[in-house]
């Protein structure tokens, strides 16, 4: 009983972390129609920057949350820079944009290796959440429950932005039909930069939040990117609800798969992705077909 409860809570936690990572990916994919293959790198860079800020890179040691937010802002700026300098030059050529993101992910991985070395860095849990919660005979680390809460709060904030603000309306219009959005007068290329920066920032934030659970190591980007891909394909591109539901599903498949069928763990993770792409390409909640 305790085993299943622990697995379930871990699945929901991991799902929450995946949501933070994939929400941005889904928006970028939906709006710009490219799978951003640097998304895993942004997750990793955000985590690395956060650990540096945490250990006093700016001269003062920041607390965990401030380090996460400032790291996220830095990654967002890097994302905006990449979009303006590289992706905008290749506007309209989706294949070239995908290849550029692939090349940049190589560069980012090596830069992180150069900057922070090859050893994994463990991130200390913020002291306020270092405790445990005892329930039903099981022990849950408070931090994992906090991650679920953070993911829910960010989901709500994103939903409010998308549904209730003008920017959100423009993003939704761009996702549904970029050409018509341009005709109506929405500056879609400016929107691209904003959404790319937003996605990058969310991924960077997720990286730091995931730090105490996953730690930070070279290769983190290659581990997280395929998971983000599966979430977005399952849930549907451009759909926030799709990302949310997809993250929870993938969190469950990943954790239960690792625990029950360790030999086929990755197989049962990627098989739904292939089936969805082959049978229902728009995913569970996606609007337009890829």
């Amino acid at each position, binding site marked *: 009983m305790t085993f299943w409860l622990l697995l379930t809570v871990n699945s929901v936690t991991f799902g929450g972390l995946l949501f933070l990572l994939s929400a941005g990916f889904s928006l970028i994919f939906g709006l710009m129609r490219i799978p951003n293959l640097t998304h895993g790198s942004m997750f990793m860079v955000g985590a690395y920057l956060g650990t540096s800020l945490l250990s006093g890179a700016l001269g003062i040691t920041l607390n965990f949350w401030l380090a996460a937010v400032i790291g996220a802002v830095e990654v967002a700026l890097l994302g905006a820079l990449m979009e303006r300098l590289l992706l905008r030059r290749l506007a309209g050529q989706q294949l070239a944009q995908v290849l550029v993101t*692939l090349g940049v992910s*190589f560069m980012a991985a090596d830069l992180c290796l150069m900057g922070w070395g090859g050893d994994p860095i463990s991130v200390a849990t913020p002291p306020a959440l270092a405790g445990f919660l005892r329930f039903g005979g099981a022990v849950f680390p408070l931090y994992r429950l906090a991650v679920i809460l953070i993911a829910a709060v960010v989901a709500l904030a994103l939903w409010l932005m998308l549904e209730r603000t003008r920017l959100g309306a423009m993003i939704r219009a761009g996702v549904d039909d970029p050409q018509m959005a341009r005709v109506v007068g929405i500056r879609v290329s400016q929107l691209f930069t904003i959404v790319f920066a937003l996605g990058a920032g969310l991924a960077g934030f997720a990286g730091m939040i995931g730090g105490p659970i996953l730690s930070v190591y070279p290769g983190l980007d290659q581990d997280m990117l395929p998971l983000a891909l*599966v979430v977005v394909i399952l849930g549907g591109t451009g759909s926030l609800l799709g990302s949310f539901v997809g993250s929870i599903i993938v969190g469950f498949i990943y954790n239960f798969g690792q625990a029950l069928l360790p030999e086929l763990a990755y197989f049962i993770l*990627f098989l739904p992705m292939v089936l969805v792409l082959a049978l229902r390409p728009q995913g569970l909640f996606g609007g337009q077909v*890829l």
Partner: protein
Amino acid sequence: MTGRRIGVAVAILALIAVPFVIGEVYYVNIASQILLYAIFALGLNVLVGYAGLVSLGHAGLFGVAAYVTAYLLAAGYGHLVAILAAIAAGLVVTAGFAALALRATGISFIMISLALGEIIWGLAYRWISLTNGDNGISVATRPAPFGLPLTSARGFYDATLVVFLVAVAACAIFVRSPFGAALCGTRDQPRRMNTLGYHVWMIRFWAFMFSGLLTSVAGILFVYYNEFISPQALALTASAEGLLMVISGGAGTLLGPVIGAALVVIVKNVVSAYVTRWNFMLGAIFVAIVVFMPEGLVPGAVRLWRSAWRALSRREAAVIATRPQP
């Protein structure tokens, strides 16, 4: 035409002479690596360059052949059986890939191929009872075709060269055949080809199978070269490097993937001895080529050469025109 034939003959002679000119075993091994990765790149190029379908999962096909070879050799079977079984397994998996991936084109095709490649990698990485996981499978001996041993660097290079020349010849015949022309047609104008009566899916399927065959052959050469196979060879990075080879050299050309493979292998093995951040360099070269020379190095170099030639002849003609008449 005879100029081209002389060029081809010279190139073949140069390749044969490589182990004699380059004495050191290390560099002969690099040359073998270039040739086997060139076969991989040629296989990928059939899809990326001629069919217009970018695949990010080809390392999976590469790995299936390599793993089947290694597994059967470890189980005690002979080399011929292992190689034939590996090619057969590679073709079967390629057919599966094609059946699933060819339901889409463009970005969807990339995503499906990526997912399929990741599935193969996940099986290799986690199905430890079958593949030994991260520990990999070692291959004890190399085959000795017609009694000639391949244990030395030179011997292996010669065998790889033969296979490479056969692969290049096969690709050349393929590209110049009516099937190759039809494939290029499906890349450029799939709907028009459909209207003309060509079975676009079938054409793409058989191109995929040919690509899978070349990739499987490269995988078998890889496992004999390294005498070891591990999941790292199937990872997304391996597929990305393959794509880098094709795109940097020039997708849709015959020589492009070979040059691209040479570029990537040399940066990975030779340049890495001098430049610690060679991975960064590889990524930067890739980004630079995609942004500035998207058609690849070979067509880009040809383009630059032609424009320089034209500029030179234009200047000459202008000089002649402005010379005072006698």
